[in-house]
């Protein structure tokens, strides 16, 4: 299990944990004290990232596309912060 955390400057904390199997994301979880509305969307994001190849380009695209949804409001962090903490997590051992 890889773990990483990111304290957003002037914002909140995002923690990420990833389990890789083969070259794919087996499980991924984001925790922390950020705000995401509607809250249930965090599970949607985690589901979208599950099973995909653990390549930075794919992950970046999925996260960025996900947060483009106008129904979503993210407070205390940005889509880029989610990308960053996920990258850090993949590099962590």
């Amino acid at each position, binding site marked *: 299990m890889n773990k990483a955390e990111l304290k957003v400057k002037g914002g909140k904390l995002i923690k990420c944990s990833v389990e890789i199997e083969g070259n794919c994301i087996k499980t991924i979880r984001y*925790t*922390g*004290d*950020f*705000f*995401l*509305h509607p*809250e249930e969307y965090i599970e949607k994001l985690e589901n979208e990232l599950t099973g995909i190849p653990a390549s930075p380009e794919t992950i970046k695209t999925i996260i960025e596309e996900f947060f483009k949804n106008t129904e979503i*409001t993210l407070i205390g962090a940005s889509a880029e912060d989610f990308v960053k903490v996920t990258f850090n997590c993949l590099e962590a051992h």
Partner: protein
Amino acid sequence: MIWRIIPLTVNKASVNMAIDSAILDEVSAGRSPPTLRLYRWKPSAVSIGYFQSVNEEVNIEACRKKRVDIVRRITGGGAVYHSYDGEITYSVIIPESYEGIPKDIISSYEVICRGIIKALTWLGLKAEFKPVNDITVDGRKISGNAQTRRKGVILQHGTILLDLNIKEMFNVLKVSKEKISDKLIKAVEERVTSLTNVTGMKPDFTKISQLLIKGFSESLKFTYKFNSLTPAEEKLAGEYDKKQFSSTEWVFRR
């Protein structure tokens, strides 16, 4: 629109969170009016934000020993230690379409927090809103707030610290034993405060409740009646308590 105010009640953690959800449903259905409720937590409890990991944030063993409850909120944000003796929690539950409440979530925090700031001002304190979701006195946090929007309704709940025992707080929140040093305690004392600290004496729960009611009703310009939960809310709260907030699955889901 005449609001309902549910004056200071004392409940266990899961019931407090279940009541918020029950009121939210009934306000959404148009069967309950906009509501302000004030409450305390008995036993003392830790509430964690929707996205937090209970294992990462809470010293579960210490909570068991001290009989401190643990509950997961439906709102984001951080872990809070709700000491029975040291804080008052409020919930404001109103339709999203309520006049004067910004659609933008960050702006709406500030508008709703004005009620608390007014109350603190009447105590002679210089309180300020600190984005995203805090209120500070002399630059130190005295109130934390969290909001969700579901079913066309805004639920904002938050705490006002009356008294703060940092050692007790660190015992139940996950901070390693070595970290509970004098140095860290000092660092927290520089960032967090309580009404006892800033006024020099422990305030009366009834008095603070009255000031909060006056503060919210003046800042949001509403008239009100005191009332309790409706039978429908009582029933829903019982269900939410049992099926969601008391369940290990919900508390430990992250």
